[in-house]
């Protein structure tokens, strides 16, 4: 893989492109089932795991069985009564609790299924554990493909998500890091995480998503945070059919600017795979390579990073994507031809790791994307810079060509631990 100009020497390794990676996996996770015709299928995580193993990626990582999150762990964010409800409700007794079902927004999107609470514990436990491993300095990158459930709110389920493992992981990271960056490339707006941190400047939430007559309906470009958190929420609303090239023209300048002005101590990247072409619920046109390019780009900043799963409803593409992104995290080249995996049949008839994009129309014109980019970069330029970066006047930022503002140019002034003072 090409060496990115943003690569910095890791303090743990002399090799600029290698990272210590841990991978959290619960063997039972694939056996949870949301219900007939429900698009969310945890089995996709097992498929990804199998591919990762067959590509010999497991042997290059620390593979960890997560400890299920406890009740009190999840109550660090969620309300007690909501957690108690999740713990006690079953498919058999749910009919006796219609008011609670309504109150906590349990409906056809968020059904009660066998093992619901266990599933939440696994997802949340892995994210919390991964965050703790990063805090302890055991790893540079930690991966949890069963996490990334970004719609869950403090007291209600939403969008197939019940417990917001991302918020719990970020709260863990905030014990060590002054600033944490949350980046969401799922096609749906990361509303649960944004809402949780909407009023604080210690977490910057950035979401690239489809906006307009689409779930969850939030994520307007003018939603920039509130009170102390004003300007620390970034929303990039996009239209159907965005392809790899268009996506990168807006992703890289914005994220370069975010890293420059915010200088987070840790990054949490939600890699929802429903932004891939051909997703059952999505309408973007990204290829696996284009999606993974986001991971590769953020990895190049050499900041402790937590990779999480999320959406993704064409399960063969989800497994491909997360396997490929695991390889990107490890900086390992993998062959496009799939190995003889036990789930090989799912990938027919092409049996390729890279699912190509379609020829759907890209409704994101250059003018439209440029307008978004200009507006967001202008908003970001209003942020106060972290002290290790020389102060720029707000007006001067407007004159600088964004292409020149690559984070790598400020290597000399960047101190990885500047956020710890």
């Amino acid at each position, binding site marked *: 893989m090409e060496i990115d100009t943003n690569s910095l020497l890791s303090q743990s390794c002399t090799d600029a492109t290698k990272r210590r990676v841990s991978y959290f996996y619960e063997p039972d996770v694939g056996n949870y089932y949301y219900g007939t015709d429900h698009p969310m299928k945890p089995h996709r995580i097992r498929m990804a795991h199998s591919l990762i193993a067959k590509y010999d990626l497991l042997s290059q990582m620390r593979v960890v069985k997560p400890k299920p999150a406890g009740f009190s762990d999840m109550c660090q964010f969620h309300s007690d009564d909501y957690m108690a409800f999740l713990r006690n409700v079953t498919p058999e007794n749910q009919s006796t609790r219609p008011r609670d079902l309504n109150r906590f927004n349990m409906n056809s999107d968020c059904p009660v299924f066998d093992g619901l609470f266990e599933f939440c514990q696994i997802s949340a436990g892995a994210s919390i554990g991964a965050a703790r491993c990063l805090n302890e300095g055991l790893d540079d990158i930690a991966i949890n493909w069963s996490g990334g459930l970004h719609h869950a709110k403090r007291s209600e389920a939403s969008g197939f998500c019940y417990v917001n493992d991302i918020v719990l992981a970020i*709260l863990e990271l905030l014990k060590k890091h002054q600033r944490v960056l949350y980046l969401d490339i799922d096609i749906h707006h990361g509303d649960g995480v944004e809402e949780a941190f909407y009023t*604080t*400047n210690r977490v910057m939430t950035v979401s690239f998503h489809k906006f307009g007559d689409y779930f969850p309906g939030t994520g307007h470009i003018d939603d920039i945070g509130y009170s102390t958190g004003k300007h620390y929420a970034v929303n990039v609303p996009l239209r159907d059919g965005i392809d790899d090239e268009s996506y990168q023209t807006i992703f890289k300048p914005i994220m370069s600017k975010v890293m420059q002005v915010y200088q987070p101590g840790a990054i949490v990247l939600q890699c929802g795979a429903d932004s891939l072409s051909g997703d059952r619920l999505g309408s973007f046109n990204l290829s696996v390579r284009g999606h993974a390019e986001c991971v590769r780009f953020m990895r190049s900043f050499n900041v402790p990073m937590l990779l999480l799963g999320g959406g993704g409803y064409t399960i063969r593409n989800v497994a491909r994507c997360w396997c490929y992104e695991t390889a990107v995290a490890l900086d390992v080249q993998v062959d496009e*031809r799939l190995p003889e995996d036990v789930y*090989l*049949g799912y990938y027919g008839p092409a049996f390729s790791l890279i699912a190509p994009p379609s020829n759907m129309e890209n409704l994101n014109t250059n003018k439209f994307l440029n307008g978004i980019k200009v507006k967001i970069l202008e908003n970001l330029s209003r942020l106060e810079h972290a002290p290790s970066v020389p102060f720029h006047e707000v007006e001067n930022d407007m004159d600088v060509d964004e292409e020149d503002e690559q984070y790598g140019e400020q290597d000399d002034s960047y101190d990885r631990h500047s956020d710890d003072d």
Partner: protein
Amino acid sequence: MGALAPGAPDILRSLKAVGLCTNLEAPTDLSQLTFDQVLSAFFKDLSRKGEVNTEFLPLPAIIGEGCHVDLWRLFCLVKERGGYRPVTVTWSWPAVSELAGLGPSFGPAVKLIYAKYLSSLERCTQSFPEKNLGLTLGRVRSCSQGHANDHSALNGAHLTGVLPVLKRKRDATIGMLNWLRTVAKKPCDLSFKIEPYLKDAKCGKSNPTADYFTQAVMLRKEMFVKKVRKDCSVEPPKQKTPLSSSPLLKNKGKNTRTSPRLNSTSVPPVTSSTGSTKQRTIPALPSISWLSMDEESDVPVGPNHQADIPEFSNYVSTSDPNSLKYLGTSFWSPKHKTAFQASYTPIVEIGCSKNCQCVIPGSPECIRFHVAENKLKLKCELGNSFYAMGFQKMGEEVALSWTQEEEEKFKSIISANLPSDDKKFWPPLFANLRSKSWKGLVSYYYNVFLLRRRQYQNRAIPVKIDSDDDDIESGFLDGKLGFSTVCAENRQCVDLDP
């Protein structure tokens, strides 16, 4: 469906005026229109526009042990008292609940019902012209059963600041815009002083300049101030971190820009630049909808929404055994790699393409052989971790723990309950295969049944494959589960989804 509501036709008319409830036709006899009907149509519109939560609200609303809540009465009672926020701030919910005929103990529950069912409607109807509100209020007063509560803020100061803008006709608004344009051209013109005009207005003297100024301020507020829906508390939660000492906020104390501002007045809103974008459709205020350029945001703020941020201090690595457990149990680490594994190249090639010695390369038996071969190789590499990571429970091997009879039963239950016939096969599977746990059934479904179905599709169906729907092909069910054909895989159909 719900009690008849005298004001329901007015509400419906006003909602239709802003493009809502278009799917509800008012009956010929308007007195038969119920509030629940209006609400139902309103919820459908909101769910279409992205507020999914309203779609599943059951009507009529039930509280306690099955008591029906008269939503129309509740709506009127709260409106009399100024709306959701004033009632919450003064905690008048027990009184409202009692007046609604439910008893004071249901105060919190009534508050929740109002928040779920009626808060969106309240936001929409806040902008309606006084004529409609007056009509509603008049009937509410007559229904209030002589309630002597003076919380009739709706006809008091609460409305004064809102109605003057909304009551104005279009030409009056244009007059205000012309005045504003004049002021903007000469912002430093010392002849413009608003205080004398406002003083005249207070004394009842007619003063168009004061009117224009008031209108302009209200319009600015409506157009540009972001409405952040707040919970009970007024202030956002205080953070535990002493942020005043953090380097990130050294200049925060000097920041006097506390009022919400539109950040991009110089950049046209993205949604208006093309004209064809689907806008986020939120009910707009009728009299200024033609001026509205930005859409409102509705991010809830309050202790019930935001996370409590932990305190930031010097991080100390934990040595507590209980805390260490949360780091997980390591199955495997790179140091476990043996000399043999270290020489193993990460690029994996498909055996069939180069070194396959099978009689029929690409046949089902060939594939099975190489899959098993790879699995054995993995077992050698990982050792005991192979089992800890659950690899022995992946793939068709799962069927080894099932008898032939159980597999046939599984297939027959699915055949009899196809999703294409609008049936669900999981309940009968659970009921008839009690020897298997639900995890065992799900495991068999994905590792054996669905996998074989996909293999059947790859071989037998020269059409677009979608493996992610639960419909089952009849050809697959009619044949033996497994490989009844020996033909090579369908690799030549390049136009199919990978």
